[in-house]
């Protein structure tokens, strides 16, 4: 089985994977909401950090918990908890990001029994020199809470090892992304997304191994179709791989992305320091920002434009989860930036389930228009 097939398999059987891991290692599994949870710290404590994701099925169990204007991702994630699909979790963690997912965390903690939960109060004034020491304090609280819960002391060596493993994971994924700069693309956007989502569900040691296999496969790999228009995807939480497959079947390939199941999640490393918690804190404060925690557009905007250039982007899909206000703020500015570069953009709004028919028509029209400009 190729590495990509393996990622796909793990995505489909994510719960079984976590349960097996638990049985095989005797470790604890902790769910996390939002990519500002420091996975390296959970892993250093012998836990498997697992991102809570939805399933894109129609559901009605959240209606008594979350108001309809809470974003579909947050609702879908809570639905999984309420339906007991994560009943194997030992813990749940969240880092302060946006009010929508806050609702998921609060309701989960109140209404779905869970042995351990911890909230990380992420300082969101990332431009302030005070932010790193504050987050360091939060990480110390988290570390102490985990130690109390597991009875295991997290040593400097444990932290060093976890930092190193996750930095390797990030480096290897960046290397895979480098291949996507090529004219002769060896991997689709959907496959790359599967790789990143799998990294949020798997033991990092095992994921690193698969990444090495993938990197060995890529030089000889070819798409079984024309790559078509080189697309960039930018937006809020996105794990709808079925949608990305459908999109790419219409005559394009996603060559780069900026979302939290893509580059925004893994792009930045922890730069080792003597003070390990301080180093982790610095990484999460200075990392590629999500608009839910940043009130300065240019940092994110500049990074996005650089990626768009480096990956030779010919069209951009700007999408948001319905009601995702943090991202809604940035979309008009991003659209304007791309307009200035003559790169066409299409804006789509996602719900738990997607109206494929409608989207298909809009995407086809967009691709036709964009191709006229490019080819």
């Amino acid at each position, binding site marked *: 089985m190729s590495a990509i097939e393996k990622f796909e398999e793990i995505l489909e059987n994510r719960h079984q994977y976590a349960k097996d891991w638990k049985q095989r290692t005797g470790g604890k599994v902790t769910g996390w909401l939002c990519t500002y949870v420091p996975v390296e710290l959970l892993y250093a404590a012998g836990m498997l950090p697992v991102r809570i994701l939805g399933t894109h099925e129609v559901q009605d169990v959240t209606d008594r918990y979350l*108001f309809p204007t809470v974003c579909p991702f947050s609702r879908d994630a809570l639905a999984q908890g309420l339906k007991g699909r994560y009943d194997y979790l030992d813990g749940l963690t969240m880092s302060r990001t946006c*009010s929508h997912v806050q609702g998921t965390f609060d309701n989960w903690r109140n209404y779905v029994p869970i042995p351990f939960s911890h909230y990380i109060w992420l300082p969101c004034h990332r431009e302030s*020199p005070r932010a790193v020491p504050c987050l360091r*304090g939060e990480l*110390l*609280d988290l570390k102490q809470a985990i130690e109390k819960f597991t009875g295991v002391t997290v040593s400097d060596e444990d932290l060093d090892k976890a930092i190193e493993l996750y930095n390797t994971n990030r480096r290897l994924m960046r290397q895979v992304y480098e291949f996507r700069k090529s004219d002769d693309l060896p991997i689709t956007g959907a496959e790359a997304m599967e790789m990143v989502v799998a990294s949020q569900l798997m033991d990092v040691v095992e994921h690193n191994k698969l990444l090495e296999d993938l990197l060995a496969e890529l030089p000889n790999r070819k798409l079984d179709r024309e790559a078509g228009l080189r697309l960039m995807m930018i937006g809020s939480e996105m794990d709808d791989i079925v949608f990305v497959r459908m999109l790419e079947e219409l005559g394009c390939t996603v060559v780069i992305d900026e979302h939290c199941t893509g580059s925004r999640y893994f792009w930045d490393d922890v730069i080792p320091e003597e003070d390990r918690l301080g180093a982790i804190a610095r990484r999460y404060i200075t990392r590629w920002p999500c608009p839910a925690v940043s009130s300065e557009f240019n940092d994110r905007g500049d990074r996005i434009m650089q990626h768009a250039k480096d990956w030779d982007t010919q069209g951009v899909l700007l999408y948001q989860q319905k009601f995702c206000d943090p991202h*809604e703020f940035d979309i008009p500015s991003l659209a304007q930036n791309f307009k200035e570069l003559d790169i066409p953009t299409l804006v789509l709004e996602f719900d738990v389930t997607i109206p494929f028919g409608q989207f298909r028509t809009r995407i086809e029209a967009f691709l036709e228009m964009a191709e006229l400009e490019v080819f």
Partner: protein
Amino acid sequence: MTTNVKYKSKPLDCWQWGKELRLEAYQDLISGHEQGKLLVLGCAATPYGMLAGLGDFVFLAGEPYGASIAADPPFSIPCMEAYEAKGYSRDMCGYMRNFLGSMYLDKYYFTGGSFPKFDFAWSVRHCPAGHPKWHQLVSEYQGIPMNYIDDETMLSNEGDPQHRIDYVAGQYLDTIEWMEKVTGRTYDDEKAIEAMRNYFRNEALWGEICLLNGAVPAPLDIKSLFALMPISMLRRHEKIATQFLETLRDEVKDRIANQIAAVPTERYRMNMLTPPPWSFLKIFRYLENFGVVFVGTYVYLINSGEVKFLIDEGKVIPATVPEERPGWPEMKNREDMCRTIARWRAEHPFQSHLDTRKKEYVILFRHWNGDAYLLLLNRGCVPMTTSMYDFQRDLQSHGIAVAMFEGNFADCRDIDETGVLDRLEAFLEGQGIHELKEA
């Protein structure tokens, strides 16, 4: 429920004075800039008394401005449309949409003249996608500097909060240097401390006045509270506000002693948690026909005022000002002031954690002698709505009747007025409250 008493009622003696003070605040927003005062944009929770260190200033809080526009649909709708024409979405903060639309149209609500150009924006981040992003757009559009304080510490009740307080205090300290840089002015610590003392005092006074409304009959109703609130909301840093609020408090006490009611037919008392839909204030007048008096709303008790909840004792009492609290140091310099503000913010009910907040809602309900809560599922503000079902469940578990309706506090297009009134009427019928034949 069945006895229909009729209480004495009369307007407040200090009503006219309050009206003048409110008007002055709005006029100052127009003329202040011409008088050489700094014009600063922020949010209602910003401890703007600190700005006094820079000299005279006028502070425009975005939410009350957005709310004023929202209450005037013919002005509000074009603002909303101007905002949407820029490509922004309809589901974002309703106050912000009115505010930004007014800026894009270059129409200032209170005069119809040009929208003011601010010297800088300085806010508090108590809503992730709200204020800082809102001010980011103003700052980009007007080309003005922007800064903010991140202090939403209520979201956590875990671990040792000290590093969070250090973080918040540090930001206040840094902000002073930043303000000096962007204005070219030298900061006067003493002036700032004095204004912050007024600020704390006026917050405590407003909280005390709101708590007095626990008396039966209620001496004030929610409409008068909304009308008087801008004094404490916009002029909290001024001595004149203290004089007014002390006069108001004494008059309210006098009304209680003499059983003077805001609504003479009072027989059913309701509370809210959030602001109302501002374009639909007639809801309160309409429900008076049923003998319903709205005695207050949690959000404005703690947003423009401060009280102290004694959770274990199930009580709420007036707050004291920081320097009178045991163990709190006197503010002698800017470091003391910044630390005091950070600590005061951290302990303010504004920052109560969700689990504590639920208890506060019950305590306040009992203090206000409530019969029911009216909850708004507000399409215009995610943070105020996310936990509403949780609150509803919790209140009901305490045997408290809850009516709920959906709408938008700042977008008149987003509320079905007839449907809401029908629903509330049905709720009241269920509570045995029928329309009064003769009001």
